[in-house]
Structures are given as structure tokens and as C-alpha cells.
């Protein structure tokens, strides 16, 4: 079934500022250069968005990814009607709710209940609609007695609850989400996600901006990748994320790739090698490959009651693997270690190894080498989970 198009963007160009400003500059220059007669050089103004076209249908979720300053927020603002497009056409069908700047319009001296009225009005509700929805909103934000206290006493998470709760009941057809919900505790965050899933099932379409690639892959039907205002790719989430990761991958030899050493114990890491099961140096880790790490730790003095940790982290610094070896007593001098990881099945991407020694009851004091080594994994395609174990998955009983 072909769903109706709710968002249509065609040949959108966006530049910030009053459109007459360049003319004023030129006029100023003309007057100023009456004597010097210098030619006028038009200053290059940056484009926030260049020639962007796409459309979103009812029930669809479009992800928007890109580095900082790539035009993601500008796009959301243009769709929200807050800033006008310079060229091109933006057509929206239905009520829009921009879930950006959720606390906009809140007066901190007023109580939460008083602010709900204002937020509702700002989000396009009429007095009648607000009256009907008020119990639901109050129920959703779970603020209880806090609703009668001034907002200045709220924590930032509580303010977000207030903003989200009002927005959730606007009956929007188009939702613009800009990573705002990352505030608030996990329980409320999950509640928001559930509510968004529910709205999607009702036919709301969403435009979603986030830097959390795993979530994007899970939530989005298509992903738009932008860089410096230029749309680079629009389509399969897997492909878009892979392209994005290539974009943000630090350049060879840059600081973001070099090892970072923190050492309170007088330890030296040396001769770190990554090999496969047959003993060859490993370049690319394929699904099901073994990975063998060997390394030397050169100690200047004896260490007691310590733990040696080796972890493998993805680009977002989430440890996919964390292996520990308790060390009751480790003598000064050269100690050699070997860690054999069997049949790894990780996602596509670049991984870093971290080697650390924790001493005593306080973790992360002692010795630590971040990004001691890196390894490129050629992962399982279309994998959303961080890890893909050896598995058998089939229907074992059917009618």
C-alpha cells in the first residue's frame, strides 16, 4: 500500500541571515570606494544546506546523520518553519511537532501546571484541546506534587519531562526529534521511546537526528547523510552508517588514533601483536576469526593484588569485549601475556584495544593504555546488535 507523502523537500538551499544583508554590504562598499575605485568582491557566505531533496511518507522514520555543522539542525528548523528556505520548496502535510528546544517558552517562576498551558499554546493546541488532554499530560510527565512548584526548582531532567509530555499529546503527524531526550532518567527515556513507537504505529512520520549509530540503524527506515550542508547519501541505514563512519574515521597518524598512556605504577607495554589462529599477523577480522593478543609488560617494581584488563571498544568507546585476569603477585621485570579470543563475530567497523592494570579497590588507577592497538573488522552485514554469536535460529514448531 502506498502511503501518502507528508514531507516533501525539493531543491532546498538554505543560507542564514537577512537576504538583504549582502546588498547592504555592496552598497556600503560602493559608497566607501568612490575614491579608491576598488572592485567589489562578493564575500563567500556559507550555505547551511545545498540542493537537498527528499520525501517522507506516513509511518516512515528518516534518520539524519552527519558531523557537527553538517546542516542537520538547520534542516529540522527549516521543516519546523522557524527559518525560511532561501531556495527550493518545502511542503508539509499535517501538524508538525518539533521536539527541539523542549524548554522554550517555559517561565521559571511559574509552576509546572501553569507552564503546561503555555507550552500547549506554543505547540499549536487550542484551549479546548488542552483541556481535554491535560489529564493525560499530567499523567505522562509523572511530576506529581512538583507540578505546583515553580519550574526554577526543577532539575533539568524534570524540565525535559514537562516539555516532552506536552509535545507527546500534540497529535502531530510529523515529529522532528533532535536527540533531546537524552536527558531524563532511563525509565522516562524508555517511556518516551515507547511512546514514539506508539505514535509511529498510528502513522506519525519522524525525522530523527542522533549520533548514536546503533539506535539509528534500529529505528530508521532510511538515513540521510549530510556533510557541510551537502547531502551525500540517502537510503539503506547500513550503507549510510558505513559511509558516515568512514567520514568520521580519524586520519592515519592523527592524535585520535595514537595511544594514550596513563601510568602510576612504572609499567611499560611492549611488543603488542595481534595474530590469527595460524599465527599470522591479522589485518582484517572476519566473522568467526580467532584473535590472539600477545604483549609484554615491563614492571619496575612488584605489584600485588592487581587485575589485568584487556578490552576491545568500538568507535563510540563502548567495550564489546572485556577480559580480566586477576594477578595476586606480579614480579618486577618482563612479564609476557597472551589472550586468545575464540571465534569473534563483531559488527563492521574499527575497534580499539585498551590494556589496563587496576590495583586495590579503586578501579582505573594504576596503569592504562587507551588505543593500544586498532583492528578493522569486516562484520556481518545488516547486523544491528553489537555482537553476533554462533547461533541456530529457526522455527521449531508450526501449525
Amino acid at each position, binding site marked *: 500500500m502506498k502511503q501518502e507523502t507528508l514531507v516533501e523537500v525539493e*531543491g*532546498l*538551499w*538554505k543560507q*542564514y*541571515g*537577512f*537576504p538583504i544583508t549582502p546588498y547592504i554590504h555592496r552598497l556600503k562598499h560602493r559608497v566607501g570606494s568612490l575614491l579608491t575605485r576598488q572592485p567589489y568582491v562578493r564575500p563567500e557566505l556559507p550555505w547551511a544546506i545545498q*540542493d537537498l531533496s527528499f520525501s517522507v511518507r506516513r509511518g516512515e522514520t528518516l534518520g539524519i546523520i552527519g558531523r557537527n555543522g553538517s546542516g542537520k539542525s538547520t534542516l529540522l*528548523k*527549516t521543516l*519546523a*518553519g*522557524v*527559518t*525560511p*528556505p*532561501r*531556495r*527550493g*520548496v*518545502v*511542503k*508539509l*502535510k*499535517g*501538524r*508538525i511537532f*518539533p521536539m*527541539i*528546544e523542549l*524548554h*522554550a*517558552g517555559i*517561565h521559571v*517562576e*511559574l509552576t509546572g501546571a*501553569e*507552564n503546561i*498551558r*503555555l507550552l*500547549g*499554546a*506554543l*505547540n*499549536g*493546541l*487550542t*484551549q479546548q484541546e488542552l483541556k481535554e488532554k491535560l489529564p493525560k499530560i499530567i499523567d505522562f510527565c509523572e511530576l506529581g506534587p512538583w507540578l505546583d512548584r*515553580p519550574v526554577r526548582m526543577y532539575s533539568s531532567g524534570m524540565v525535559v519531562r514537562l516539555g516532552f509530555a506536552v509535545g507527546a499529546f500534540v497529535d502531530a*503527524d*510529523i515529529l522532528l526529534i533532535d536527540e533531546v531526550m537524552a536527558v531524563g532518567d532511563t525509565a522516562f527515556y524508555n517511556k518516551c521511546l515507547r511512546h514514539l513507537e506508539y505514535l509511529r504505529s498510528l502513522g506519525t512520520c519522524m525525522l530523527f537526528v542522533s549520533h548514536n549509530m546503533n539506535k539509528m540503524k534500529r529505528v530508521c527506515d532510511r538515513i540521510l547523510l549530510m556533510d557541510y550542508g551537502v547531502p551525500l547519501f540517502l537510503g539503506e541505514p547500513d550503507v549510510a552508517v558505513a559511509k558516515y563512519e568512514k567520514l568520521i574515521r580519524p586520519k592515519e597518524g592523527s592524535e585520535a588514533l595514537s595511544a594514550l598512556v596513563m601510568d602510576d605504577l612504572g609499567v611499560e607495554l611492549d611488543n603488542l601483536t595481534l595474530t590469527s589462529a595460524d599465527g599470522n599477523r591479522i589485518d582484517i577480522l572476519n566473522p568467526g576469526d580467532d584473535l590472539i593478543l600477545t604483549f609484554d609488560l615491563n614492571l619496575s617494581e612488584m605489584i600485588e593484588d592487581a587485575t589485568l584488563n584487556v578490552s576491545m571498544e568500538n568507535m563510540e568507546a563502548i567495550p564489546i569485549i572485556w577480559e580480566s585476569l586477576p594477578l595476586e603477585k606480579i614480579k618486577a621485570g618482563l612479564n609476557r601475556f597472551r589472550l586468545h579470543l575464540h571465534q569473534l563475530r563483531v559488527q563492521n567497523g574499527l575497534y580499539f584495544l585498551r590494556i589496563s592494570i587496576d590495583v586495590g579497590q579503586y578501579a582505573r588507577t594504576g596503569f592504562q593504555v587507551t588505543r593500544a592497538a586498532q583492528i578493522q573488522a569486516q562484520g556481518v552485514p545488516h547486523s544491528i546488535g553489537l555482537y553476533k554469536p554462533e547461533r541456530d535460529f529457526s522455527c521449531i514448531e508450526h501449525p
Partner: protein
Amino acid sequence: MMAHTKGVYQSTGRDGGFNQFIFLVTSLVLREFKGQYRRAFLGPIWALIKPIGYMMVFIFLRGVFDIKSDGAPFALFTFCALVPWTFFNTALSRCAPSVVSNGMILKKADIPREIFPIATVGIALFDLLISMIVLVGMLVWYEAPAFGWNLIWLPILILLTGLMALGMGFGAALIATVRRDIVFAMPFMMQFWMLASPVMYPLSQVPERWHSIVVINPMVGIIEGFRNVLIHGKAPDMDLLSVSIIVTVVVWVVFLPLYHQMSKYFSDVL
């Protein structure tokens, strides 16, 4: 090649119409009115303190300079002028920063940008209503012949003052988004304007050679109109009032379309 067409934004979502607009304005006015006095011990009484304070100063100055008051009790004479003036002053000077200080809302919601100066004048109207209570008390106390048919002029004069402040407020708010100078200049300009208006003195005491300059001040017609209606129980002077009306029409014709056009870009420049 980029198409050299103007950008188009179409949305069918805004269906609230006029009711929604009114709800939004009243919500904004209520927010500001409640919010501004909530932490103040004296609360809305502050709306009275300003005109009463000026009245005290003027009573003192009258003793120094021997100012006439066209036969009316001086306190009533000057308070009748201070009420519309304070309304005009509060409305206009608060319009200037109204867009800048609501930048957060501008960057989020697609609401008519005219709403901010409109709500600002609405808040000033609340203050006016509070000071009217004192004015009514004084009119009764001095047994002024205000309570007759001519009282019908009063809401018209208040409306005219509000519309004039709003028209100028569109201009001031617009300028303030680009350059903040007007926000700093506003208190001084308004002080100057008040001294140039017959608030403390009667128009009749202005020397003949200054007359032509004084009457182009659009506040003269409104202030004298208030006095005519409240102190003398007669209709406003139409010659003076027509200046106020013309100025109001001119500022609306000039500033409203300009404001409307430029306001699309407010979120870009804030």
C-alpha cells in the same frame, strides 16, 4: 545549477486559526504578568508605584516652578496624564526587547512573530487597569465631572494609545533584533519624550512660538484628551487627536509590513 527561485514553505498543519492565536496571546500575557510579579513582595502594586511616584515628584516641582493646572487640582491634573503616559511608556519600551528575549520560542515554534509585541502591549494593559483603580478613586474624591456620556471616549483613547505603542513597538522590536542600541536608548528617549509632553504642565502654558513643535507630538492629543474627558467632562480636542491618529496609521503602514517581511528571518539573526 541552482534554481534562482525564491524559497517556498507550505504547511497545512496550522489549523488553529484565530482562536488559537487568541489563546496563544492570552497565554503569553498571563505568563509574563504572573511571572514578573511572582517573586516581588509588593506584586502588582508596582504598577501603581510608578505613576504615583511621578505624581509626587511633579507636585514638588510644581511648588518650585509655579506650574499652572488649568484650574484643576494639580494631583488629579497630572495623574490623568500619567496614566496614559505610563501605559504608552511601558508598552513601547518593553516592545523593543520583546523579540530578542523570546528568542528561544522563535527558534522552536512556527507562530506568527507579531505575537511578541502584541503580548507586550497586553501586559502593559494589565498595569494600566491597575492604575485606573487609583484614578477612579481620585476622580470620585475630587468630584470631577468625568462620569457622563463623554466617558465613552476613554476606551477609544486607550485603544488608540495601545495601537500607537504597538505600531512603534513593531519598529523598535525589529530594529532591536539587528542592533541592540535601541534597547539601551529607550529609557532615555522615553524620559525625554515625557518631559516634552504636557504631563507635568498644561498645554496652555507652552509659549506660543513652541506650539507648532509641541503639537506634532502624538502623545499630546491623547494626554489632553484624557484630561478633557476626565477633568472637564467633554470630548477630546479633535485637532490634537488627529495628529495621534495620523501618526498611528503611519507607523502601522510603515512598520507592520516591514516587520512581517523581516520577521521570517528573526531566528536566523538572533
